[in-house]
């Protein structure tokens, strides 16, 4: 039992770390004006791997809800599931359109693609939609975000401060 809860705790910690990395990478990649086009493209390409890890960590939930979607599932879970699919589809299109207009990643691999303005428009559109969907995704998981922050960031930090205080008093 304790082994199970310890593995679940460790999985939550990994998930929180991966999610924070994806979130900050996305924020930096979303603003190519400040990060530069090369950072934008390489960071977004690396985010693909992080996204796969994120999906692997949520695999059980995905399989469970996929099986029960038309059965007994509450409305919020159903909305959440559909929203996750939308995010996945939008993210895939954003990545493809990004590769199609790549100016750093593909040329560095010796690949040049014919220029097509439709890909660029699609990239802008899907990136804006992704931002909105990411906001909704965060909102629907807000409880988990707050709990995880309390448990894995604020509590250990508070523990550190109180230990330092105790040390000072003892000295």
């Amino acid at each position: 039992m304790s082994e199970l809860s310890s593995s679940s705790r460790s999985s939550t910690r990994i998930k929180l770390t991966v999610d924070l990395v994806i979130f900050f990478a996305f924020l930096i990649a979303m603003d190519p004006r400040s990060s530069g086009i090369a950072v934008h493209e390489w960071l977004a390409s690396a985010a693909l791997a992080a996204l796969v890890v994120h999906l692997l960590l949520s695999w059980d939930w995905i399989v469970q809800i996929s099986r029960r979607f038309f059965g007994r599932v509450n409305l919020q879970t159903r909305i959440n599931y559909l929203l996750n699919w939308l995010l996945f589809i939008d993210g895939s299109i954003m990545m493809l359109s990004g590769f199609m207009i790549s100016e750093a990643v593909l040329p560095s691999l010796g690949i040049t693609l014919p220029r097509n303005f439709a890909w660029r428009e699609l990239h802008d559109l899907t990136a804006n939609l992704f931002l909105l969907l990411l906001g909704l995704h965060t909102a629907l998981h807000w409880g988990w975000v707050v709990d995880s922050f309390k448990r894995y960031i604020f509590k250990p930090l508070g523990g550190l401060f109180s230990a330092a205080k105790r040390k000072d008093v003892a000295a």
Partner: protein
Amino acid sequence: MKTLWRILVILVVMGLVMGVTYAVVNAGGSVSLPGGEPRFEERGRPPFGEERFEGGRPEGREGGGWMFGIVKNVGVIAVVVTLIVLPKSVARKRRRSAAAG
């Protein structure tokens, strides 16, 4: 092995979405014009790379303006989260107080 299989499933589904998108966009007939000239130039848009990312910062964003994009994106996410979480939290509190009273 199980993890590799799952990764393969994720990549296959992603590939399917990308494949369908590629087919739809190309079927739209908006590929480069014969002769190598991209169609977007006809619509008065500058070529790739010249419009936004290279050639310095856009006007009005000098001096700390580079942070604007990141702050704006965080702001959009914060607004969406607040719009959803706040009413939910208020409704939950009301329900709790109604149940207690």
